[in-house]
């Protein structure tokens, strides 16, 4: 079983000034698994994701990706990051590049593919998120939902071993959330390994293999959606899930 672990996060600590934002977080992710992380604002969810690919270096703790220690000082971090997709809350598409170039950049500059091959793959990924016809559009010419789908295509193009999503739909107008969740659901079903910070409980319930509830920089509880929704072990988990369901609507 252990050989199937793609991502292993061990005892991550992170402090900002006097505040210890992460106080020892550990979890493992199997190949093809989708984990959804939930928790109140300011609990360190974004920080945790950024500690995984070291966009923010953790103070302590180790991370392995497919047997390679990400946190090892001798590891080529750029190479590792190319294998970890990251989808941001506010998309962060490269504003001066059109959709195709956003998706193609990593293929050209990191994977060093020739232009023809890179274009082929990029177009395929844009197709996959339903935006092939927007290939020449610049970010400012796309809706939020479309921008987020391009950013997912950008991550997919690198053929990552895992994709980290940091609240991918929380900057979107409600009517645009569905199209992004749909793409993510398809990905999960196709066997992509994903960590998703999200409070879309419908998505979590139908797609997550496991939900992690974080609060105060630690994991309070983790388990299957079924177990957490119907029979949480911790009182706080139940309270939070009830609150979130009220706020974001019924789990579908």
């Amino acid at each position, binding site marked *: 079983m252990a050989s199937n672990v793609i991502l292993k996060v061990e005892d991550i600590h992170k402090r900002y000034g006097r505040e210890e934002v992460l106080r020892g977080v550990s979890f493992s992710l199997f190949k093809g698994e989708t984990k959804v992380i939930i928790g109140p604002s300011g609990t360190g969810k974004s920080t945790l994701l950024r500690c995984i690919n070291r*966009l923010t270096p953790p103070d302590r703790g180790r991370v392995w990706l497919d047997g390679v220690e990400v946190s090892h000082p001798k590891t080529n971090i*750029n190479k590792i990051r190319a294998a970890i*997709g*990251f989808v941001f809350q*506010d998309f962060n598409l*490269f*504003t001066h590049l059109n959709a195709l170039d956003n998706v193609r950049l990593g293929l050209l500059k990191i994977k060093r593919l020739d232009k023809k091959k890179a274009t082929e793959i990029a177009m395929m990924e844009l197709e996959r998120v339903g935006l092939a016809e927007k290939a020449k559009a*610049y*970010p*400012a010419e796309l809706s939020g939902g479309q921008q987020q789908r391009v950013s997912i295509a950008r991550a997919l193009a690198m053929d990552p071993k895992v994709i980290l999503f940091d609240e991918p739909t929380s900057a979107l107008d409600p009517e645009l959330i569905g199209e992004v969740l749909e793409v993510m659901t398809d990905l999960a079903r196709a066997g992509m390994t994903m960590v998703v910070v999200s409070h879309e409980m419908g998505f979590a319930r139908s797609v997550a293999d496991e939900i992690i509830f974080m609060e105060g920089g630690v994991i309070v509880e983790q388990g299957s959606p079924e177990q957490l929704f119907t029979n949480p072990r911790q009182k706080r988990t139940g309270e939070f899930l009830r609150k979130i369901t009220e706020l974001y609507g019924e789990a579908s």
Partner: protein
Amino acid sequence: MIVFRGLPGLFQASLLNIALLFGLIGLGFVVGIPIALFQVYGNRLLGGVASAWEWFFRGVPELVLLFLFFFGSAQLGLKISAFVAATLALGFRSSAYQSQIFRGAIQAIPKGQMMAAHSIGLSRWQAIRYIILPQALRLAIPPWSNEFSSVIKDTTLAYAIGVNEITRYARFITERHYRLAMAVYLVVALIFLLFTYLGNRLLGTLEHALRVPGFEAKAARAAGEHG
């Protein structure tokens, strides 16, 4: 009319101003970019050196810089022509101003751009080259146009160390025919107005050619947010 006979000479001399302009603004660009990058991304040492550079070349008067580079270098036994001395002095001075322009533009780029660049595996340097600079340079065109209009006039200062540029040539004419002073200097003024106009037109065309839909508005908003 002697003014007309003087015209070809004036135009010819103005070519030296143009040459000096390209030399100094090119040098200022090539030096200004790394100075800005050191200040934003460099360690303490590089950042410190860059700041000292900027402080020196913005703080010392142009004429003093010209004299330093021309007479000062001669005293050190370096044989450089007045034209080269002027290019270096005014070019380094411009690099200090240009670095400020580029630094502002770089800092106006939202942090998420660098993060996204890192997230697909681009190194710091690759991110600067493919993401940050292409955006920053576009943002920098309008303030850079101001710098252009300003240094084009500064080329006349090379007069002071004996470069045979347009003002020196005008002076050469008016020393002989002092009643032509008004006419000659008006012609010189017109030539500069023409150069500035053409230069700004060229930059406007460049800005238009490099335009990315929605980019300016978004970047301007980001710049506003960052103060």
